[in-house]
């Protein structure tokens, strides 16, 4: 949400070439500040604290946005040339193509990062146990900063694409929650899972809207989510929890 709003400002004022690096820089800053100031003290606390903390941060930003932008929709500038290509039976807009390309790029980069790089491994280690990671000299704080910065930057990048489709408005933070079914369906810790889950949810939502009406369509991802949680709790690609007694 912040991403979309800020990128609107940058786009309106500076144009694409400056706006993109500027927004990414801002994301970097915001991610870093959030981690530093707010999430770092939570190291070693249960996951629920972190969950609630992020929600609180979301509402904090929401509050700021409410004050400065109100609840109206800010139109988003069209920053890439609008064309459309025929693809099989349908026409695909260039925005779609750009979005898909960017998303795929991010996925590949992430997958490589987690499996191969030292930092990626350190990040996975940190996810399992803060204490063990610290005992091995991994700077948990740095890992956290990086996580948040990455998350913020990716969110900002996607905001550039997303904004064009729906415009910029305050309730965008609710859209963040819509990502949750996608991620869970794919499996929480799987990059491929997120990709597949995202596509699946998107496609099914569109189909459900078309055949069953907007009413069913809008809650369809959550219905799928419920089913997946019951049938295959860790998603299609997620790791099962290891329980030893």
């Amino acid at each position: 949400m912040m991403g979309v709003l800020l990128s609107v400002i940058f786009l309106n004022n500076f144009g694409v070439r400056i706006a993109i690096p500027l927004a990414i820089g801002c994301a970097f800053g915001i991610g870093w500040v959030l981690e530093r100031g707010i999430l770092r003290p939570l190291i070693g606390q249960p996951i629920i604290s972190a969950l609630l903390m992020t929600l609180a941060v979301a509402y904090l930003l929401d509050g700021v946005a409410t004050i400065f932008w109100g609840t109206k929709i800010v139109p988003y500038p069209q920053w890439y040339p609008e064309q459309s290509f025929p693809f099989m039976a349908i026409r695909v807009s260039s925005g779609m193509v750009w979005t898909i390309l960017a998303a795929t790029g991010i996925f590949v980069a992430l997958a490589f990062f987690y499996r191969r790089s030292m930092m990626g491994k350190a990040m996975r280690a940190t996810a399992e146990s803060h204490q063990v990671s610290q005992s091995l000299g991994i700077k948990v704080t740095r890992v956290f900063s990086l996580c948040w910065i990455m998350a913020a930057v990716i969110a900002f990048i996607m905001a550039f694409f997303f904004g064009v489709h729906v415009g910029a408005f305050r309730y965008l933070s609710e859209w963040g929650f819509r990502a949750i079914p996608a991620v869970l369906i794919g499996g929480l810790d799987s990059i491929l899972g997120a990709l597949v889950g995202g596509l699946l949810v998107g496609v099914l939502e569109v189909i459900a809207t078309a055949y069953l009406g907007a009413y069913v369509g809008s809650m369809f991802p959550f219905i799928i989510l419920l089913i997946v949680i019951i049938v295959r709790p860790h998603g299609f690609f997620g790791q099962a929890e290891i329980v030893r007694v």
Partner: protein
Amino acid sequence: MRPSGIMDVNYRQSAAMLRTRSQWLAVGILLAFLAVAGRVFPSEIVDVMNMMFILIVAAHGLNILTGYCGQVSVGHAAFKGVGAYSAAMLIVRLGWNHWVALPVAALAAGGAGVLFGLPAFRVGGFYLAMSTLAAQFILTTVFIFAMPGIVGGISGITVPFPAIGDFSFRIPENQYYLFMPMCVVMTIVARNIARSRMGRAFVAVRDNEVAAEIMGVNPFGYKLRAFFIGCLFAGVAGWMRVVYDGCVRPDIYPLMASIWLLGTIIIGGMGTTIGPILGVILVRALNEMVLMLSPLIGGFFPIEIAIRMGAGLGLIAFAVVVIVFLIFQPRGLAHLWEVLGARMRHWPFRYEPR
């Protein structure tokens, strides 16, 4: 540890809620205060207190589910909504009496809770929380879109105020004498559940499911029970909210309200009976303060920003309080209170004797 000089002579006594004479006295004074408060304070303050009573009942429910049984729910407002909508539909569409609608509405909410608690059979923790998130989105969608002729659609249903004889629960001063006793009763019920067999089983499931199982506690069964009871409380709160507003509308029960409740019990202290009460009072009072102050602050800004100041600052204040508590006092006000007590007991020594 408890102060020396207080001896329990039997087990019943050591399990009692109130142990000392001063505790009895304090409760007496509190009850007396509550009894007259509805007539003493100005209408606006009584109105705020009414809202607090409703929220406390809902928070007790969430506390049983999340605080005691450890099942995080981010859809509690929606369950409250189920109670509210059931009550409204029973009263308006079927012409039921308010008082008969109360238990039915509560059961309906409890039932909805059990339904969305079913994934507990396979999952727990974060995944179950997501199932309640799904409940939040699905239920609010249902409130808005499903059969507008009956459920009321976006504009909701207007519900008449209940009355006993000539005593109508229309104005805050009268509502107070309905909500206050309900809140007190529900608090006692919550406390009793917490300290009885079931409460212990909840805590057993929360703290260690494996251990719970080997002691003969069926984790799935108790999670469902927690969902049922927690949402039952939400249903009661929903009924109260219908009486308070004289209507139901879908926008009264958004995701924000669910998260607000969760934040409240964290601030108050999860897994304690006093926690939800302290949390609601603190957060609600803070909200009123912000509402009072925001015109002042808004004066420094241009008008189009100033008019949104109240809503925005309310969000910011709540978020900041939650953040501050998570960082500095993750166990909430209730724990702060205990630490203070412990400090006083071994004063002037700095540390507990070992």
